[in-house]
């Protein structure tokens, strides 16, 4: 290690060494905590620290932060350093502020003040430090505070070059967070003219700024084009010695060149002026020519810099898409890179070619490299390069090479990386559809996709093949034959069963003439897969079977037998059960004519763009090559699919709300539903929404004020029973969850809702339960409660679970009101009235008058009071209708005595309730609990 220049901080070095010598993570944390404590005490101590010590400690904090620990102090000390007159201290202060940006409002004002001072400094080093800090923070505050100074610094003749560079980029940073910071008017031309600056560093920084400004306001900054073209031309034709230190490994100003080329890509066409255009084309040609020259150095830096400029030039050529000659040359150059030994170059060449493939001028040229690209897809060692090759094959595909490319992609798919399979499947599906001249080929490709990569075939893909088969009569027989053959395989993918089921249900009759695929054979083949499939596929198969009844009346009894089997409880899924029984009834009740109408072949789908394309675009926004050759000079095709306009609103049968855009997931049933409106309205009732009425739930919480056991809640899915017992300030509560349905309730999850603050008064512990509540089963959950102090209200339990794919949620109050901790107290009239008189303070009394429930029920009220937990005292009150009670609430902290008097008024049908207790909160809570309860 070389000796460090400037001032080393010995203490910091020792600390870093200590950390490095720590043998374990624990030791490291311990050492850090020790240091943090040390620094904290130094900062807090009354002995004033000198600048050096502050700097050192702030630096240690920074180091600790960089190790991944949180730092929550030291900001003030860092801010103090900003105004130090020692540069090294100031610098560390700024570094801390930049790294641990804290928009603490008090500090930000101090920081801004320090920055203001440094911006005024005559020393450019100080000014730059301030500018770097503004750029590092880049907040709105900064933009507001410096919107005057920085533009001035940028264009003033007095400003030194190094400061101008920083000012340009600082302004750019602020512009990104606050676009209104840039002054317009005369400033525009002054900023543009920075492109002519003598100093290459200033031009480089300014070009970045101008690029951002142009994006915002292209017209205002149009003047930059001519300057940029001439500057670029001068650089490209310069010899590498001309630009001295701005030449990088024999490449003149690569950074500036690339920035200028990017800047020009903001305009299309780049320029209307013939002269400027000629100069630009000349420059681009020079760049292409230079690529052919032998390298001036073997170093990778030389070739990287040179090719960086070349790729950016090619980007501009592709962007303009107007010079066939340049496009073809670019393509040839990239073609050479495809077999370069640098992986990076091959990757970038494939990427650039994707764009070239979409130009009509270079599309044919790109196709010449097809062989190499296919090899890249198969042979590249790096998956990202293989992926890029797939992208390019997709982009270069057209009617002429589609069969070959699709075949190669299918071959590769068998061994392709898992990470790219799904996308490849989408691409193959799109290409096969788009370039199919013969739809039997298309059907073969999609079935191959399912066979090779069934798991990666999304719904959209298999929906689409069915749409196409239904819409194209010429392919229906072939499709039926092919799926039938595919289903022969002993293990075939579920997606194959779906497509097969659907197609045979529609077109099985087209192959039924052959005894090898006779109706019964088709049916048995499909049904042999039934038990291996998910409920959704089973539902689809049931629909196929009902369709078979229409197509093949001769196997009606076999099918009815299957329906019968699945229409009873043995079918765990309610949807399947219902479907089976309805289809069974349909096949029994309906006449042949009705059947034929209801189960008619599906009508054609409206023609629309493939929905698969939309999926692909969503997967890789902005990264999908269009596979759409652009006409020159025409805007890019607006090919966003509009398929959602034809959404076939699906039947309510699918209560799990699978968004089914194409109306395909439960196809024949859908058809039935539509037709049943006119033909068979009785059926519609059966299909009505049976799950939507969650509102029919019964909440019994109120009743539990007066009892400890019973049914707390019930709806058509779930019943919750409660058993509870209480002793002193402790309680045990058993909740019994009963699943009333025929399917398991999954993700079953009761959560207690009782804030931490409330838990300080009533501590409730709940045991976990299994997440699945099997059909018809009951599980128990135990809760314990400990009353620490009196409280209002009661905890709530939130129960969530999935039923048939739909999320369900209820909130239920638990019967854990404070009265549960009452101990009944027996006493005679004398002591009752003595206590009653004692509790006459304002805070010890509460009274409510309320209307009685009709009819006024005195024995009922007595029973309720007994259930409430207090002792009902007879022969205490002179009026035999009045009820008086006494009890003690047990909490951990104290016992609260409580008296009650309930006076009925038979004429008015009213009650007057009076509570007296030794604690105000208890008085109120008990009174509130009982009001309106009689």
């Amino acid at each position: 290690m070389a000796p460090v220049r400037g001032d080393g901080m010995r203490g910091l070095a020792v600390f870093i060494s200590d950390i490095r010598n720590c043998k374990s993570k624990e030791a490291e944390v311990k050492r850090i905590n020790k240091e943090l404590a040390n620094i904290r005490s130094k900062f807090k101590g009354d002995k004033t620290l000198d600048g050096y010590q502050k700097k050192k400690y702030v630096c240690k904090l920074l180091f600790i932060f960089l190790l991944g620990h949180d730092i929550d102090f030291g900001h003030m000390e860092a801010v103090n350093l900003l105004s130090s007159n020692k540069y090294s201290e100031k610098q560390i202060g700024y570094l801390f502020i930049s790294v641990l940006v804290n928009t603490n409002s008090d500090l930000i004002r101090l920081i801004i003040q320090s920055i203001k001072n440094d911006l005024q400094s005559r020393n450019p080093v100080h000014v730059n430090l301030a500018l770097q800090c503004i750029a590092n923070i880049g907040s709105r505050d900064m933009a507001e505070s410096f919107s005057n100074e920085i533009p001035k610094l940028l264009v003033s003749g007095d400003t030194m070059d190094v400061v101008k560079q920083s000012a340009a980029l600082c302004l750019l940073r602020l512009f990104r967070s606050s676009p209104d910071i840039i002054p317009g008017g005369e400033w525009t031309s002054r900023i543009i003219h920075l492109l002519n600056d003598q100093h290459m560093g200033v031009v480089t920084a300014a070009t970045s700024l101008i690029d951002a400004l142009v994006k915002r306001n292209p017209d205002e900054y149009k003047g930059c084009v001519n300057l940029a073209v001439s500057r670029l031309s001068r650089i490209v034709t310069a010899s590498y010695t001309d630009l001295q230190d701005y030449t990088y490994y024999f490449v003149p100003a690569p950074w500036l060149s690339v920035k200028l080329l990017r800047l020009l890509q903001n305009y299309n066409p780049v320029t209307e002026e013939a002269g400027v255009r000629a100069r630009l084309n000349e420059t681009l040609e020079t760049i292409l020519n230079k690529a052919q020259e032998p390298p001036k150095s073997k170093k990778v830096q030389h070739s990287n810099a040179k090719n960086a400029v070349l790729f950016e030039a090619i980007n501009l050529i592709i962007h303009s898409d107007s010079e066939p000659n340049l496009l073809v040359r670019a393509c040839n150059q990239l073609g050479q890179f495809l077999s370069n030994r640098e992986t990076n170059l091959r990757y970038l060449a494939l990427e650039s070619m994707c764009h070239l493939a979409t130009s009509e001028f270079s599309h044919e040229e790109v196709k010449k490299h097809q062989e190499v690209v296919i090899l890249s897809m198969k042979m590249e060692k790096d998956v990202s390069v293989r992926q890029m090759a797939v992208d390019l094959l997709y982009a270069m595909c057209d009617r002429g090479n589609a069969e070959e490319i699709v075949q190669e992609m299918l071959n590769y798919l068998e061994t392709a990386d898992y990470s790219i399979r799904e996308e490849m499947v989408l691409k193959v599906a799109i290409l096969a559809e788009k370039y199919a001249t013969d739809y039997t080929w298309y059907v073969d490709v999609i079935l191959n996709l399912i066979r090779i990569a069934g798991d990666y075939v999304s719904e959209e893909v298999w929906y689409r093949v069915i749409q196409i088969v239904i819409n194209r009569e010429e392919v229906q027989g072939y499709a039926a034959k092919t799926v039938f053959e595919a289903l022969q395989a002993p293990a075939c993918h579920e997606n194959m069963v779906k497509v097969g089921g659907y197609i045979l249900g529609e077109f099985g009759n087209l192959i039924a003439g052959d005894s090898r695929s006779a109706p019964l054979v088709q049916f048995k083949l499909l049904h042999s897969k039934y038990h291996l499939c998910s409920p959704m596929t089973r539902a689809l198969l049931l629909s196929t079977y009902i369709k078979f009844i229409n197509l093949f009346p001769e196997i009606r009894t076999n099918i009815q037998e299957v329906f019968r089997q699945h229409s009873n409880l043995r079918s765990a899924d309610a949807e399947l059960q219902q479907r089976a029984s309805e289809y069974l009834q349909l096949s029994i009740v309906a006449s042949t004519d009705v059947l034929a109408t209801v189960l008619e072949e599906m009508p054609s789908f409206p023609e629309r763009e493939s929905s698969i394309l939309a999926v692909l675009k969503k997967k890789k926004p902005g990264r999908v090559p269009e596979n759409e050759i652009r006409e020159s000079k025409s805007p890019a095709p607006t090919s966003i699919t509009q398929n959602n306009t034809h959404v076939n609103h699906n039947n309510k049968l699918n209560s799990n709300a699978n968004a089914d855009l194409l109306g395909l997931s439960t196809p024949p049933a859908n058809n039935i539903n539509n037709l049943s409106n006119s033909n068979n309205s009785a059926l519609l009732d059966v299909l009505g929404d049976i799950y939507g009425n969650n509102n029919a739930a019964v909440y019994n919480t109120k009743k539990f004020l007066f009892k400890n056991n019973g049914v707390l809640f019930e709806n058509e899915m779930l019943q919750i029973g409660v058993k509870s017992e209480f002793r002193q300030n402790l309680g045990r509560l058993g909740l019994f969850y009963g699943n009333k349905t025929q399917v398991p309730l999954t993700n079953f999850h009761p959560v207690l809702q009782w804030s931490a603050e409330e838990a300080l008064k009533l501590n409730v512990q709940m045991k976990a339960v299994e997440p699945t509540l099997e059909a018809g089963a009951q599980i128990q959950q135990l809760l314990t409660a400990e009353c620490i102090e009196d409280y209002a209200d009661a905890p709530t339990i939130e129960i969530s679970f999935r039923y048939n794919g739909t999320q369900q949620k209820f909130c239920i109050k638990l019967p854990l009101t404070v009265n549960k901790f009452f101990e009944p107290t027996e006493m005679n009239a004398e002591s009752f009235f003595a206590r009653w008189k004692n509790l006459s303070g304002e805070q010890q009394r509460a009274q409510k008058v309320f209307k009685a429930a009709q009819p006024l029920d005195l024995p009922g009220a007595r029973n309720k009071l007994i259930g409430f937990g207090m002792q009902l005292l007879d022969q205490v009150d002179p009026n035999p209708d009045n009820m008086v009670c006494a009890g003690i609430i047990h909490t951990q902290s104290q016992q609260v005595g409580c008296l009650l008097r309930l006076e009925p008024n038979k004429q008015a049908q009213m009650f007057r309730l009076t509570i007296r207790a030794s604690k105000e909160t208890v008085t109120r809570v008990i009174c509130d609990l009982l009001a309106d309860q009689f």
Partner: protein
Amino acid sequence: MMLFMLLFSRQGKLRLQKWYMAYPDKTKKKITRELVTTILARKPKMCSFLEWKDCKIVYKRYASLYFCCAIEQNDNELLTLEIIHRYVELLDKYFGSVCELDIIFNFEKAYFILDELLIGGEIQETSKKNVLKAIASQDLLQEDETPQSFFDDHGLG
């Protein structure tokens, strides 16, 4: 525009982080973790570029240190590699044959040098000579400053 730069060791230890976009601390930690894992898993001959989320990652290994930058979709990958190289050259020139330890013990210097090369994620100065000159003038300002206290000289501070 560069979004951030991370330096980490072959063991996955973060040595320097510079963020040109405002991310919450939690996100920073998550990004760092994910990228370190992804890049350390890659083999030597693989491409230096990868698509990651909605940006591009450019990375290169120098001895035991990985330099990793995130750039926007339209940015030039090859030149980003050369920004990394220029930074390494500057560190090398400044420390004289730089090694990981120099960056650990003088992390603040590594930051100062980076700030002279890039501001707000954009390249400020591509000339090696000019950057070194700027750093030298910073160091010059420090030369005059007073020496450290006695305790600190003995590593007791």
